[in-house]
């Protein structure tokens, strides 16, 4: 056996070992962020904290959401879909005015999921409430059931869809908490835009992770839920409401 041949075998063994071990190193690297192949886990509960005292009179979150998810209108406000909207509040007695973004509240006990006849409306283990576009029959019972009016029915043909965000005429849709971004370890588009262009009012994170900012703030500061009386345990929490 010539040294060349021996050397060649050595390199070959090294390459083979590297090829065998690399995925393992890659797995370690990915251990922090869930890989797309891995199922959502109940160890996490994704949520938002929105401090409306910082919510500026802008709609950066709305624009970013609809851009990210390819939600375009047809100039028909009554039937165009809105995944997130700015809501203005004025106290009936004092006149105190506020503004806040409102979207799917990603409830732990979502009424939309309860009423859906086919199970198309569902809640992932990590708390994100979604619509399966393949099994939604377009009955709109979930729109009737949603306490925060967060769902839209797609009233006409859609164009310009994003590969990560399937949409379809005749089905119901709503905020997905940018599930495609969350699964890549990123934050939802609205949160990113608010922190870049808005009032830095939104925090995204894992409600069950003691090291997360959202966890610490919810533990230390007062917050409220929309329709808290319904005891739905929403994933979206508000401050200053």
């Amino acid at each position, binding site marked *: 056996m010539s040294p060349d041949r021996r050397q060649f075998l050595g390199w070959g063994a090294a390459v083979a070992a590297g090829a065998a071990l690399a995925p393992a190193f890659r797995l370690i690297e990915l251990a922090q962020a869930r890989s797309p192949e891995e199922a959502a886990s109940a160890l996490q509960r994704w949520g938002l904290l929105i401090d409306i005292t910082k919510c500026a009179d802008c709609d950066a979150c709305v624009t970013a959401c609809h851009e990210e998810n390819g939600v375009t209108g047809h100039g028909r406000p*009554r039937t165009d879909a809105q995944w997130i909207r700015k809501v203005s*509040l004025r106290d009936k007695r004092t006149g105190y005015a506020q503004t806040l973004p409102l979207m799917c509240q990603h409830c732990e006990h979502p009424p939309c999921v309860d009423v859906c006849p086919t199970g198309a409306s569902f809640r992932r283990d990590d708390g994100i409430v979604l619509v399966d576009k393949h099994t939604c*029959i377009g*009955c709109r019972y979930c729109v009737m059931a949603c*306490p925060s*009016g967060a769902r839209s*029915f797609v009233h006409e043909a859609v164009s310009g869809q994003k590969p990560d965000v399937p949409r379809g005429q005749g089905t119901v849709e709503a905020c997905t908490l940018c599930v495609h971004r969350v699964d890549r370890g990123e934050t939802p588009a609205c949160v990113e835009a608010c922190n870049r262009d808005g009032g830095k009012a939104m925090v995204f994170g894992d409600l069950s992770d003691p090291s997360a900012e959202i966890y610490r703030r919810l533990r230390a500061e007062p917050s409220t839920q929309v329709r808290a009386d319904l005891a739905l345990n929403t994933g979206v929490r508000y401050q200053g409401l």
Partner: protein
Amino acid sequence: MASVHYREIEGDSGGYYALLGALGALILAGLGAAWYMEHNGHYVTGMSNRIVWGMPHVIAVFLIVAASGVLNVASIASVFGRDLYKPLARLSGLLAVTLLAGGLAVLVLDLGRPERLIVAMTHYNFKSIFAWNIFLYIGFFAIVALYLWTLFERRMNGYTRRAGVLAFLWRLVLTTGTGSIFGFLVGREPYNSALLAPMFIIMSFSFGLAIFVLVLMAACRGSGRALGDVVLNRLKNLLGVFVAAVLYFVVVYHLTNLYIARQHEVERFVLWDGGIYPVLFWLGQVLIGSILPLVLLFSPAVSRSRRAIAAAAVCVILGGLVQLYVLIIGGQAYPQLMFPEKEVTSSFFDGVVAAYAPSLPEVVLGVGGMALALALTAVAVKVLPFLPQSLADSDVNSATA
């Protein structure tokens, strides 16, 4: 029972074919409307993201509620043993099936994805009252068909009572399910009440009997069969009781809400300042749908007149449609309560009364469903002996004696 003779209608007159032709045209128009809505998307209707259930749902729910109620006549005969009603049981069972078919056709054709009906048949979420209803509707068809078989087949007559009891219980559960579609909506103030389930049951008694009376009068007239005062007056009095019972439930429902501070705004909306809805409530539901029929049915001056009975039944049907319009459309038009004590505005029509006007395709689809129910009935009474040969007082009395 043995002395009641049933016979198919001749069904070869010009009037019969004109009726079938007219109903067929309405069915075709309904199918065309459904195609137009599905092809373009629902933006061509009056529905929106705030009023997601429109005119098709008003008519579909009316037909489904009436379908279970119309079976009452059969139940009175077979479950409660009232012989006078026995000659009417076959027609009662037939209408129960055809009205349900008409209502479900409308409901399915209004879906965003009607071609996915197979998905609804194969994927079930058993916490959904809608999913239960799919079973309840299919079961209703099967059980009423079984019941009709026991009526038609002499050897099966011994099982009529058992099948009748099963159908009666099933229809009570079915209408409970229909009412609970609204009763289980926790996030909307106008619904969210257990009272809706029994209210829908009593509504079904009333709407179903009104349709039954009209169909029976038309069928007897059209086929030249006698319809005596004994049968008609019994049905008339029963209809009056049902109309009064519906009114009672409506009063209790609103009185309860008026007592609860949180519900005051809803009541103001429906009863006083909600635009078209208080007008529909007082004029349509209360005056035309309840008071006028009660006067027509019980006033000594007119109540013996057949025209008055027919007019009362028409009023009950119109009032019933209005009642469901106020409940279904008005209930969605009223803004959802999300932020108590706040005025709410947004580009998504939060905090304001949602606008809705029924569009032509919606109405045509709904009317097509009604036409389907009547056409199926008209064909069935020609093919099978659903109608008794005579309901003349002498025949009825001898049959039940």
